[in-house]
């Protein structure tokens, strides 16, 4: 115990590490905020950048960037309706309307506070229950990932408001588009028509930037002469009362996030979506209707994706299996520095675990401070006249898109998606579902096929699996329940109508 405490104190005793964490969080916020720049990309760059550093310093910086980066995505989501990262798509749903009503400050302030809380939840779970959760997460079969993706899909019918059928249409188009390219399993070319660029598939980040960013700009231009909403910046830091009011929701979503983050291969984005869905269905009297500035609509996804940070480290530190893309890169960093990620990591280098816990904690505190300081300047951005902001937003989208794969064709795709998104929105087809379809499509397709292959392509064993495995059974029942909870009978029963 004392030994662990000693390890925990390492960053406190090395000023260099402390500084790096704060710098990392600051840089991470910007990276996360800029659409197209992802934490994953930044982490990859950092690995090479910190190659010659001491592993402790390198990790400190990367942890900082990770925490800051996941948070940063929400900023642009709230301010200009472009999620800086897929994990913030759900946040944009309610965050942006809030900003338009002049409450960006309140939104970001609340977001920061609950984010820090959720981050600590994730860290605590990591510190206390890592091995147990890690072993449990291994039991998730491809079938269960498929079910999770289906749960994410259910969200499609309800986000962005508007006609559910239109939402499903957009979502299905998104799924269809996600199939473009080389099938990862068989190498077969789907929908490529002999075009080299299509062979690489349609990156959903490109689509996201276009569908949210450029289409937003175009939609804004329809109503010319609009004044930018004046921001009310009185109470940015939420009162204790507010915080406590939403504590159950925060805790619930954070735990959901930790768990999803702990599942190998899935991270903050899926967690945020599921949390938003869960919040929507379980909140009887939201502060405002969902999709129109409900505070719950910001709290749920943001707590989930912060919880997922701690969660992603769980399998990584205990088993050497990455919980998400960033931890996969961190594993690479450990290798490069001569360490051995895997089950032996805790045994051979025990200080690493507690040091990372400590770095993440400090990063969360840094997030609190830096986040709250920057609320006012960020919120003021909205007050800049739209005629100036929107062109800059478009150019920012262009750079962000290019930064993904250094491909000019991506820029054309992005603008194309923007135009498509503009038309879709005119007719009431929300763009969120399309991006969701693009994200979840591959997860659905691959896991469905793995499950089918596991059942040797026979229907009966395939279906049997859903009820025989306890995890699958639980998930299947949850989905059934979720579907049922949409129907009129249920709503009457619950007194929601």
């Amino acid at each position, binding site marked *: 115990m004392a030994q662990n405490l000693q390890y925990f104190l390492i960053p406190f005793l090395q000023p260099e590490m402390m500084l790096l964490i704060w710098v990392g969080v600051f840089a991470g916020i910007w990276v996360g905020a800029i659409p197209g*720049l992802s934490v994953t990309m*930044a982490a990859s760059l950092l690995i090479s950048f910190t190659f010659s550093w001491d592993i402790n310093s390198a990790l400190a910086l990367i942890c900082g960037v990770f925490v800051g980066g996941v948070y940063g995505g929400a900023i642009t989501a709230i301010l200009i309706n472009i999620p800086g990262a897929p994990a913030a798509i759900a946040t944009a749903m309610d965050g942006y309307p809030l900003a*338009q*009503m*002049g409450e960006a400050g309140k939104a970001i302030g609340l977001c920061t506070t609950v984010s820090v809380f959720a981050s600590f939840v994730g860290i605590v779970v990591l510190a206390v229950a890592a091995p147990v959760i890690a072993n449990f997460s291994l039991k998730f079969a491809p079938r269960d990932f498929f079910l999770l993706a289906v749960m994410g899909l259910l969200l499609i019918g309800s986000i*962005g*408001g*508007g*006609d*559910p*059928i*239109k939402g*499903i*249409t957009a979502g*299905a*188009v998104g*799924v*269809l588009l996600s*199939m473009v390219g080389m*099938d990862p399993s068989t190498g*077969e070319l*789907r*929908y490529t028509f002999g075009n080299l660029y299509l062979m690489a598939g349609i990156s959903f980040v490109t689509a996201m930037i276009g569908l949210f960013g450029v289409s937003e700009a*175009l939609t804004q*231009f*329809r*109503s*010319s*002469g*609009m*004044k930018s*909403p004046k921001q009310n910046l009185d109470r940015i830091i939420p009162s204790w009362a507010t915080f406590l009011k939403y504590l159950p929701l925060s805790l619930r979503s954070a735990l959901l996030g930790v768990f999803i983050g702990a599942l190998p291969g899935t991270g903050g984005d899926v967690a945020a979506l599921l949390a938003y869905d869960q919040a929507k269905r379980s909140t009887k009297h939201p502060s*405002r*209707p*969902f*999709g*129109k500035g409900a505070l719950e609509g910001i709290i749920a996804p943001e707590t989930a994706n912060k919880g997922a940070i701690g969660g992603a480290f769980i399998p990584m530190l205990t088993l050497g299996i990455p919980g998400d893309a960033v931890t996969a890169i961190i594993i690479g960093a450990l290798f490069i520095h001569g360490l051995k990620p895997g089950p032996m990591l805790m045994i051979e280098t025990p200080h690493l675990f507690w040091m990372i816990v400590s770095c993440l904690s400090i990063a969360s505190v840094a997030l609190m401070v830096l986040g709250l300081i920057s609320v006012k300047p960020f919120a003021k951005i909205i007050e800049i006249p739209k*005629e100036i902001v929107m*062109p*800059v937003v*478009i*150019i920012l989208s262009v*750079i962000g898109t*290019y*930064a993904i794969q*250094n491909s000019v064709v991506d*820029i*054309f795709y992005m603008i194309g998606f923007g*135009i498509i998104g503009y*038309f879709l929105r*005119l*007719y009431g087809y929300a763009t969120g579902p399309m991006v969701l*379809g693009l994200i979840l*499509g591959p997860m659905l*397709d691959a896991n*469905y096929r793995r499950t*089918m*292959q596991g059942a040797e*392509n026979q*229907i009966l064993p395939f279906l049997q699996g859903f009820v025989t495995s306890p995890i699958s059974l639980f998930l299947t029942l949850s989905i059934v329940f979720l579907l049922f909870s949409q129907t009129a009978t249920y709503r009457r029963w619950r007194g929601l109508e």
Partner: protein
Amino acid sequence: MEESKEILAEGNAAEGAASLKDLSTFVPEAHRKPGELGIAAITFLIGALGYYFALDMTSGEYSSPSVFPKLASTVIMLCSAVNFFRAVKREKPEATAPSLARFLFPGDVVVVLCFLVVYCIALPKLHFVVSSFAFLALGMIYLQRGKHIVRALLVSAASLAVLVAVFRYLFLVILP
């Protein structure tokens, strides 16, 4: 409900009925929008094409690569059909509604779209900095109707400088 509609109306002095609505619950409108049938037909077509091209893919097993594309295409076709019939049942667009062209492309949007198209063409030839500066400056000047030209140029230059510096030197992204 009423209160929230007010807040919306305050924040958005809307001229077109199109995109600014209470988004939390779905209240079907009485009149179609111009072109609504068209878009339902287009999405149906996308679904049909998706299915058609999926026929080329390997199939046979339940786990073939063609399964999900076909599934997604079918869903698209079904939903499009529903959308189409729902739209047909509603009444024709209001007399006061704009014509299709005006609905899709109100003033500013057309101009910005043109700028975007020109930008796409210019980008490979003139490279990033020049094209983007032109886009920014011209865009701002147009949107501000010719006022504050100097401010537009300065802001364009400044923001471009910052963006280029950050991306080129910090993130090592070589701009086109």
